């Protein structure tokens, strides 16, 4: 290998130590009726949509998830279940961003919330998984 050099210098304002086998981070969703309690979601660079548990919808004041914009997801098994999309605003790792949240009733109820690239693509962050830390 050649001599190491600085390719790009990034500035991070915080470090979050998630301490789990996967990079899961806390977030707060800002809704019309106020802020949600802290929730958790997986940073998933392999997904474009952000998909949350249907159970979370009611917490965010969404009584009927099918009232959202209809869409579908493509799951690893090739299935394309229906989903419904809602615009949202949330604070993730100190960054307040707007993104769409999909709710998919076909998602197993034990699946973790997923933050896809439509959300985390707005944040400059780095994962140092050896120390279970994410910088943002």
């Amino acid at each position: 290998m050649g001599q190491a050099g600085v390719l790009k210098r990034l500035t991070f304002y915080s470090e979050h130590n998630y301490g789990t086998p996967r990079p899961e981070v806390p977030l707060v969703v800002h809704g019309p009726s106020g802020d949600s309690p802290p929730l958790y979601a997986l940073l998933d660079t392999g997904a474009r949509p952000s998909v949350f548990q249907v159970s979370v919808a009611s917490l965010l004041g969404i009584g009927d998830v099918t009232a959202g914009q209809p869409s579908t997801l493509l799951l690893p098994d090739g299935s394309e279940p229906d989903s419904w999309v809602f615009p949202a605003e949330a604070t993730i790792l100190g960054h307040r961003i707007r993104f769409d949240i999909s709710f998919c009733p076909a998602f197993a109820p034990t699946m973790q919330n997923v933050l896809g690239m439509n959300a985390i693509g707005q944040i400059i962050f780095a994962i140092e998984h050896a120390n279970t830390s994410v910088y943002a």
Partner: protein
Amino acid sequence: MEVVTRGCTVTMSQREYRVGAAPATNQTIERERVTLTSASMPNPVVRPAPGTREQRWFHEHETEMIGQYGGRWIAVSGDTVLGAGNDALEAHEQAKARGFPNAALILVPGREGEWDKLVF
């Protein structure tokens, strides 16, 4: 502390925050490392994100929590479970009724290692 990673030098400092995480009567101290790449940055205001402490606590007690609440949602403040339910709202309402509307909501895996098999 100064570390070098991939040719970049970053300076790491430690700060302490006092977190009034109820219902504990004593305040607890939570630490967060702050990473800076600019020596000229003015004293930044960085606090642990809400839910950070609960996430760490849950991870340390995950086996115990799976045994008690596997597959359910729990509402946690500090190191105390204040609500549990089959959905997030149910756990939240229980915590809220006990005076903790901002208790973190955690989905407990149904069984040990369940999430290790997930592929998205």
